[in-house]
């Protein structure tokens, strides 16, 4: 009975999140449309100035544009096109935005996932070792090291990666690592200081068993929430790293779009990244809730 209640609650949460994502998708699409519509230079068609185009062709082009001149008509056409998977055409690259996203998203996704893997592994390992030793020298050197990396701009880490010829995911991992290390360490320390853990230690239970059975279940839900947040950090770091390491991903695309003021491209890239982030955060939150429920 209690299990059914928990499952219903989780199902409701999933539905609520999906509804939120849908509303956000529509809201985000309207916002993107507004940004594109009111951007300087909207409606200026370079093809009209091309002498190779005949008068009839130019007239047909103008009539096509006139169809979308009204604000309501513009939004309607934009949303209709979006529903058919048409995100418009990049002004600078002269290619469909959807095609560009299809090419670039897997590259960034691959780098981000691998970079996060490296960062999580290193941060968890260092935090756990620090917890096991609890020596001031180890703690101080660990904190100093992560503070030093935290003080480096991600673009400098990217330039260093270019110089050392390390893969892009390593640079992303280096940028994300210190942020994760701080949180994981403080989460594990606070979990270790709980009274039930102290009682378990007093009874002489093995430290490995204490970690797996008593510390990790307490720290797991916030750690899973941190996983969602770390995706946003990694995607943010991907812009300078991909731009400077010349990796053909979303970060480089966004940078190129910003430099060439290609608004249809940058707005849609940001919109897609926002949806990916929200989906990742929602999944992490739901996993945390499910884990907390099963632990109880």
């Amino acid at each position, binding site marked *: 009975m209690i299990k059914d209640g928990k499952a219903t609650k989780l199902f409701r949460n999933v539905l609520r999140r999906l509804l939120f994502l849908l509303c*956000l998708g529509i809201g985000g699409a309207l916002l993107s449309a507004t*940004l594109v519509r009111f*951007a300087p230079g909207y409606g200026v068609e370079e093809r009209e100035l091309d002498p190779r185009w005949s008068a009839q062709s130019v007239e047909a082009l103008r009539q096509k544009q006139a169809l979308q001149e009204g604000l309501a008509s513009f939004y309607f056409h934009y949303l209709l096109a979006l529903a058919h998977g048409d995100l418009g055409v990049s002004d600078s690259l002269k290619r469909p935005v959807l095609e560009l996203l299809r090419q670039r998203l897997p590259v960034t996704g691959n780098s981000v996932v691998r970079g996060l893997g490296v960062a999580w592994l290193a941060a968890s390992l260092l935090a756990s070792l620090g917890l096991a030793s609890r020596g001031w020298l180890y703690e101080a050197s660990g904190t100093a090291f992560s*503070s*030093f990396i*935290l*003080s*480096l*701009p*991600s*673009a*400098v880490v990217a*330039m*260093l990666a*270019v*110089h050392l010829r390390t893969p892009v995911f390593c640079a992303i991992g280096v940028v994300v690592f210190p942020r994760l290390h701080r949180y994981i360490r*403080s989460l594990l320390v606070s979990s270790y200081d709980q009274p039930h853990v102290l009682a378990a230690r007093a009874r002489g239970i093995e430290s490995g068993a204490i970690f797996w059975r008593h510390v990790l279940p307490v720290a797991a839900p916030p750690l899973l929430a941190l996983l969602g947040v770390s995706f*946003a*950090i990694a*995607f*943010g770091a991907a*812009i*300078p790293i991909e*731009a*400077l390491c010349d990796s053909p991903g979303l970060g480089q695309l*966004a*940078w190129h*779009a*910003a*430099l060439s*003021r*290609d*608004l249809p491209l*940058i*707005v849609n*890239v*940001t919109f897609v*990244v*926002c949806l990916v*982030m*929200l989906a990742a*955060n929602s999944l992490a939150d739901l996993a945390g809730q499910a884990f907390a429920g099963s632990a109880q």
Partner: protein
Amino acid sequence: MSPLQKAAAIILCTIFGLMVLATILVPAPYTRQFRDVPNAAPSTEHLLGTDALGRDCLSRLLYGTRVSLLLAPAAALLSTLIAALLGSAAGFLGGWFERIVLAATDLSLSLPWLFLLLTVRAMLPLDVPPMVSVIIAFLMMGLLGWQASVRVICAAARGVRDSDFLLLARSSGCKPARLLLRHVAPNLRPLFYAQFLISIPLFILTEANLSILGLGVMEPMPSWGNLLRGFEDFSVLAANPWRLVPLILLVIVVMCFQLVLPSQEVTQ
């Protein structure tokens, strides 16, 4: 304050002092070119050498420090003011206003900050005078960097809302605006300071990233980000290690800010 925090505060004060005295200390204006000695090594005339265009590196570093260290706190102040206003009003008023503010905050927090900055920067003209680029870069950070602070301030204001002293003030006929300004805001002041201090290193690093990508402060105006653009060729750095000084200074300042930050109990 621990001895380490005291040392960090002294270092920060010294760097701020040098920044203020930049006009007196610099050997030459930051745009002046010494065309006979481009890429010069450190000497008595040019303590940190010259860059590829023959400009004195020390002058550029001191002026760049002034740009970064004056405008990052200015942007942090702006973002903290926005966060304080929105967060305390949301936490104090509660209801639909709080829900809307928190939903907007969650939404913008889910988006990587650099993507948001790039989108806004793309909407503004790129070909602008250097001074305008400085204002755009830091104004953009100030106006878009309030989200994380709003959550924290809102949660603290919610706690104050249910306190006894506020109930007493309300029962004696205090109006909401007065309650907010005279009773809620002063109780949240330590949190405002903490959020302000947290934002400064974040904005310094963001400016560096934006300028390295060519979307921040424009040449010939120096800033830490601009000075780091020369790092693209590390082989030059290996031969001229004094070029690392801007990076060392940036790392020292950001680390010192991290050290002097209040404890996590105040900031979270």
